[in-house]
């Protein structure tokens, strides 16, 4: 083997290895984000209890605002980092949890509930959002712990074979396409909803302004 061949091999491996390492690191880091997001979401009663004991409105506001920002930003980041579960090449070639795409869909559903209903005021909306998150997290944790991170366990070989994306490629791709369709539907619904809501609120504002201008003109004319 010539020095050029070694250089090519190192270059290729840095590019391929770097990509694989980045994706593997995100896959390994996603449980951290899932767990943090889940804990912050479930920890709401504790946060509220602490909030009530704040003597000043300022402290309470800072506490609540920090909690909300962290909780919802984590949800968004987790969904953003889950995006590679919807990339067929990666799902086909790399060892990923087979239900990762479904978990991401449930996370988006939880986000959609938060966007469309007042989760912090409506108990049922909060429950629905919690259910989506718990189901999503279970779909992620199960295959990750017992398949991706358990290749050394002969007793789990069957489970690992069935729940790893690159050893059960057909099922992985089918699940991915179904989840992608679900994500597209939810995203389209959110898009239409945001548009209609903006139209409604802006039209109301416009009508109010127009009415005020007309009444002002009538008063001026008298």
């Amino acid at each position, binding site marked *: 083997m010539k020095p050029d061949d070694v250089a090519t091999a190192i270059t290729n491996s840095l590019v391929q290895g770097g990509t694989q390492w980045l994706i593997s690191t995100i896959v390994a880091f996603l449980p951290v984000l899932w767990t943090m997001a889940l804990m912050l979401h479930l920890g709401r009663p504790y946060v509220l209890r602490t909030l009530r004991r704040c003597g000043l409105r300022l402290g309470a506001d800072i506490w609540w605002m920090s909690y909300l920002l962290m909780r919802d930003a984590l949800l968004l980041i987790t969904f953003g980092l889950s995006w590679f579960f919807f990339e067929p090449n990666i799902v086909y070639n790399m060892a990923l949890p087979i239900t990762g795409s479904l978990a991401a869909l449930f996370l988006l559903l939880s986000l959609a509930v938060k966007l469309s209903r007042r989760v912090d005021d409506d108990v049922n909306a909060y429950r629905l959002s919690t259910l989506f998150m718990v189901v999503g997290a279970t779909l992620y944790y199960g295959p990750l712990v017992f398949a991706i*991170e358990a290749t050394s*366990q002969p007793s789990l070989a069957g489970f690992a074979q069935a729940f790893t994306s690159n050893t059960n490629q057909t099922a992985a791709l089918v699940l991915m396409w179904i989840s992608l369709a679900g994500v597209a539907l939810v995203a389209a619904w959110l898009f239409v909803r945001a548009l209609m809501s903006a139209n409604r609120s802006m039209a109301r504002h416009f009508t109010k302004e127009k009415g005020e201008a007309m009444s002002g003109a009538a008063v001026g004319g008298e």
Partner: protein
Amino acid sequence: MNVTTLTNAIVSGINAGAEQFLEGTLAAILPVIWLALLGLHLGRPYIMDMIDRFTLRLGADLLWLIYIALRDFLILSGVVMSFMFLFPDVVSTDQLPLTGGFAAVMLFAVLLVKLMGDPDHNLRDFRIVTYLLGIGALFYFVPYLFGVMFNGVASGQLLTISNFLVSNTNATWAVAFGYITIALFAIMGAVAAGYTLITGGRAEVPESTSK
């Protein structure tokens, strides 16, 4: 050996090495997190003393909120970073404290008590949290100190004990402990989710109207 074989070998090396480095770093940071959260939890009387001396309510509120946020965030980080103890491949490959998973379970139990009780204002709950943290620290520090950090200098019977306390030289026990940890995590997670679903995320369970 051709270019492809060499490329694959380097890729495997990079991936395996980087993963072990990441897990090793997490394992090295965990004792620091444990010490810091123990210090903050046990330092509660000092913080309360300081709060009493504040003449302005704003300062007292901010100190208390920052203290709580730091303390609880460290507990949360401890649980999250201990996730590697649940992975059979990781515990059988890396040098980790044998009972590190149980330490994580104790931390998770602390969070559960904080969710369902009120350790900052209820003595019984505070005691439970303190005991859980104490037991958790023992579960982490004993195998870490006398296993992971001692097997290089130990000899004879001490080396046998030291190897027993390290996950990759006692993989059968480590994986079994991992499964128990997973089961405990799942049970406590289900309890936390159930509690939050019942309360609907409110601070207290709504009182029943029926007598």
